[in-house]
């Protein structure tokens, strides 16, 4: 626990230092842009970047969905208990009725066209974000083994 805390503080320190040294995303070309936002958008894990590109529009920044058309990912019993189905949903899309945290959802999520590595990355991001604490990492091979 103590080690973890130290790691987090250390990482945060490095990140902050990195920003002040490089000012990595300047936008001189354009007027009036808030550079702060570009920076927060760009410094992501690959899984988070995929989440921001492909998932956030429906499932939200907080992973809570909308309790009507888009199921939550944060605290989702479906995600927790149906690992294979969850990977398959990201890989091939998801159709038809599912029940997540006792609420019925019956919508279609199209296949996103992600590579197996990208599916693994975004699954690992989702499964360790917000209140989710999955410890078994999804690997590219595990995704490759999931068939339609």
């Amino acid at each position, binding site marked *: 626990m103590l080690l973890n805390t130290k790691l987090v503080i250390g990482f945060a320190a490095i990140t902050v230092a990195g920003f002040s040294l490089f000012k990595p995303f300047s936008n001189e070309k*354009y007027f009036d842009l808030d550079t702060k*936002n570009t920076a927060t*958008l760009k410094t992501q894990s690959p899984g988070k970047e995929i989440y921001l*590109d492909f998932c956030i529009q429906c499932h939200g920044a907080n992973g809570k969905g909308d309790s009507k058309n888009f199921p939550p990912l944060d605290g989702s019993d479906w995600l927790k208990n149906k690992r294979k189905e969850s990977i398959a949903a990201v890989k091939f899309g998801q159709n038809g009725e599912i029940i997540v945290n006792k609420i019925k959802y019956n919508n*279609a999520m199209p296949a*996103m066209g992600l590579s197996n590595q990208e599916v693994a990355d975004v699954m690992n991001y989702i499964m360790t974000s917000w209140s989710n604490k999955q410890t078994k990492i999804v690997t590219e091979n595990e995704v490759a083994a999931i068939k339609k």
Partner: protein
Amino acid sequence: MRKIVVVSLSAVAFLFYSCNAQVKPNDIIIKDDVKNYKLEVVASDIAIPWGMAWLPDGSMLVTEKSGVLYHIKNGAKTKIKNVPTVYARGQGGLLDIVLHPDYAKNGWIYITYSSDEGEGTGGNTKLIRAKLLDGSLTKIESLYKATPNTTKGQHFGSKIVFDNDGYLYFSVGERGEEFVNPQNIKRDGGKIYRLNDNGSIPKDNPFVGQVGVKEAIYTYGNRNAQGMAKNPVTGDIWAHEHGPKGGDEINIIKKGANYGWPVVTFGVNYDGSQITAKTEKPGIENPIYYWLPSIAPSGMTFVTGDKYPDWKGHLLVGSLKFQYLELIKLNGNKVVGRQKIATDVGRLRDVKQGPDGFIYMGVEGKGIIKIIPN
């Protein structure tokens, strides 16, 4: 003591939620559905019916996003052959389809889709034209391919519309690069383009002759336009575009105009953080209407026929997010009223008035739905 804590906690929670909700000041309140019509499914089981067009015999061509082009006659679907392979990633796929205004004479069909053609990994929006012969696309001509290719999943556009002078307009979204593309006319993306019907660039396009620019650009600063229609009264091209979280807009397309993304917007980032404090700025066109929160507008058509007396002369816009059709009542170029139609119909991808004067909706997971007035 405990009571006080609970009360103040709920006050804090209330404040939090009310600040979080996006509310447009002095908005025109949307009226409830009056349901003076019936819905009839004219073609079923289409996953994402993205665009639709009618052939002279009244049969339909419908694009399905994953890359299938359907010919639909009397409810029966046939797959058209020789459709180009789409770069199926994120919001990309087989997109819009429109017939040349003089189709009966020349047979040209215009299609937009995401393509991995050209250098670099990924894809970008492409416009082609082709002819339909014996259930197959033939004589395919490439008219425009946006660059560069990118693996980003967002914002391909791409609706197509012709104006009264025979110019073709199509949209390309900013491809998930809002700080790179929309305000730079030397780059594709975040634009509405204007071409001649053969793909050549009209000599009077606004940026023709400037060094290094994409001369096909007609307007810029457009985030992701997925609805375009010709105003039957003025002949102007109208477009709507998705905002980020909030700030979807309806714009009248003007030569060389900047629609402001991401310099000005009524929306915020998906995580609620600010993109810009500005909602307007000199030199940037204001929308004629904006939505807060977002409805995720998709497809648009003006109602011109006599089938729906209350809707005639007004605008219809589909909502992907709230899953209804929105009637936008107009007085000239001003939005004066809003009403729900087809409440909870499903994710509404496209809406068009058919040649028979009826309104047709493309609804995800369902297919093509016709609105029949009582």
